[in-house]
């Protein structure tokens, strides 16, 4: 068991190192103010928010997300029509221009965490990996705030 863990860690580290060296784009991604709301049980989808900044010289494209917390994590976007009707749909790929940021915030883009594998409990955190089109990825630890939290400050 321990041996397996070490092997896995070694593989992961090697992978991380090689991808880190080989790819320039996603290296220049900085994630700020990640947060999520606590969930009621595991039946409902959760949502996580953050600011993804591209501090590099080239555009980066976010292609998907993954987390051990949810079987089906996906970037979704809420839009509200002129008549005041809100709907939610997968956002597809998100390209961030150099020097720009993608804002994942309530009522707009969010990491929708479908099919939770465990309850999201206030005070805990979970890793969320952002996958980019250059094959690189960035993992952030997302703190879980209260159920009625409105922003990264709670």
């Amino acid at each position: 068991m321990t041996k397996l863990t070490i092997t896995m860690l070694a593989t992961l580290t090697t992978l991380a190192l090689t991808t880190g060296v080989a790819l320039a784009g996603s290296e220049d991604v900085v994630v700020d103010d990640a947060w999520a709301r606590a969930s009621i049980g595991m039946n409902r989808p959760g949502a996580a928010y953050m600011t993804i900044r591209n501090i590099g010289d080239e555009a980066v494209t976010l292609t998907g997300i993954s987390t051990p917390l949810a079987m089906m994590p996906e970037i979704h976007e809420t839009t509200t029509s002129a008549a005041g009707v809100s709907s939610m749909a997968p956002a597809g790929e998100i390209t961030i221009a150099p020097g720009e940021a993608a804002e994942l915030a309530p009522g707009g883009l969010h990491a929708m965490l479908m099919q939770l594998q465990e309850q999201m409990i206030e005070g805990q955190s979970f890793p969320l990996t952002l996958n980019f089109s250059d094959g690189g990825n960035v993992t952030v630890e997302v703190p879980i705030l209260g159920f009625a939290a409105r922003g990264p400050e709670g």
Partner: protein
Amino acid sequence: MRRRTALGYGATALGAMGLTLFVGWWRVDGPGAPEAVASLPLPLTEMDFRLTDHEGQPVGPETLVDRPTMVFFGFTFCPDVCPTTLSDISGWLDALGEDAGQMNVVFITVDPDRDTVETMAEYVGYFHPAIRGWTGAQDQIARAAEGFRASYERVPTDGGDYTMNHTASVFLFDAAGRFVSMIDYHEPREFAVPKIRRALEEETEGAT
């Protein structure tokens, strides 16, 4: 000759102007006008629906008359808009302080299949204590939405699940049950709180 050309230009210009006016009329007031985006909610006194609150009590529009009222449609499986709106409402109520106690604040589910009385009780428990959760039979929810001129629609998602599109505005009524205004989703607190105060004040005006 030159004069005729000038006249010709004049006629063309007039014709163009006339056409522009006609097109404008057609699109704004005429047969080409878009249907009204959303008409105003009925007064609460003219609505008719039977629901159950999160404590199992039978409720209807008449439950809301005599006090200013704030109503919002949503569903508890909603990961983004609904918790955000309920958090916003909780914040507005905190900002109102003691005045919040004079209001009815109701969250009506558009997903009664999943939002039972127990579910609603658990859910509203996470927000400001003034917020009540109402659910009920599909046809009664539909009648309520019709009265508020709210709309909702069930939309299947990838995983075989479904989500709900729904009106995310918050409706404000005065103590007489008359519609006062709407707080749109994302409206900043400095606009929202005065609107609620207005609904509260209409009550005083009505009394005098």
